[in-house]
């Protein structure tokens, strides 16, 4: 939701090499039906937290939709989901 330059600073500071993509227009968030209306710090629309593991055929293999914004997927859960993929 942050503009790209804000994300770039964050990525640089944290040393991330993952693709950090910004969706300021909420277009992809809407396409994935993840809009959480007025939930942002200033009351603007943001995404509900969600994780998807998508395979080469663009098929969803694993999802995580938390029911509590305090409870986020931990790195070990994500890695386990990835490890459970065939090959």
């Amino acid at each position, binding site marked *: 939701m942050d503009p790209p330059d804000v994300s770039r600073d964050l990525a640089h500071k944290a040393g991330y090499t993952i693709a950090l993509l910004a969706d300021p227009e909420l277009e992809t968030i809407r*396409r994935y039906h993840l809009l959480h209306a007025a939930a942002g710090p200033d009351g603007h629309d943001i995404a509900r937290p969600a994780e998807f593991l998508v395979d080469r055929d663009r098929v969803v293999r694993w999802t995580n939709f938390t029911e509590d914004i305090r409870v986020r997927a931990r790195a070990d859960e994500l890695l386990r989901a990835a490890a459970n993929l065939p090959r």
Partner: protein
Amino acid sequence: MTSSATTQRATPLWWGVGLAVLALGFNVFFFQAWPGQRLAAWISAACTLLALVLVGPGAVRLFRSPATTARKLVGALVALIALGAIGISSMAFIVARKLPASDAAPQIGQQAPDFTLRDTNGTPVSLTQLLTQPALGAATPPKAVLLVFYRGWW
């Protein structure tokens, strides 16, 4: 009335306070990203509810007892602190779970919609691209891509 009887009367209040503080303490699970966060959220809620059940009647009992005014004042202060903690925990639980249903979101076995978004350099990147091009430092395309819709700690 002996002091032990007074102490006994105040016991539910103290238990309530202890549980209210414990309920708040369980939030450490979230901030430290410890395992068992789902369970921690429910244990915290249970402690909050139990604290509420104990603090109210506990305070009433203390006030009806022949305890000294000083003790009652301390009890009232403690009860107020506990109620504050209970309020914070209850609000956190309710607000944290106010999430839209994700029924229409892509489910396991379904196709993930393609998208194109800008990366931190302003370069457009599509999901298809992420799936078909090797990631930084990799020789082959990945076997899968993990999409994390991240909104910060909010």
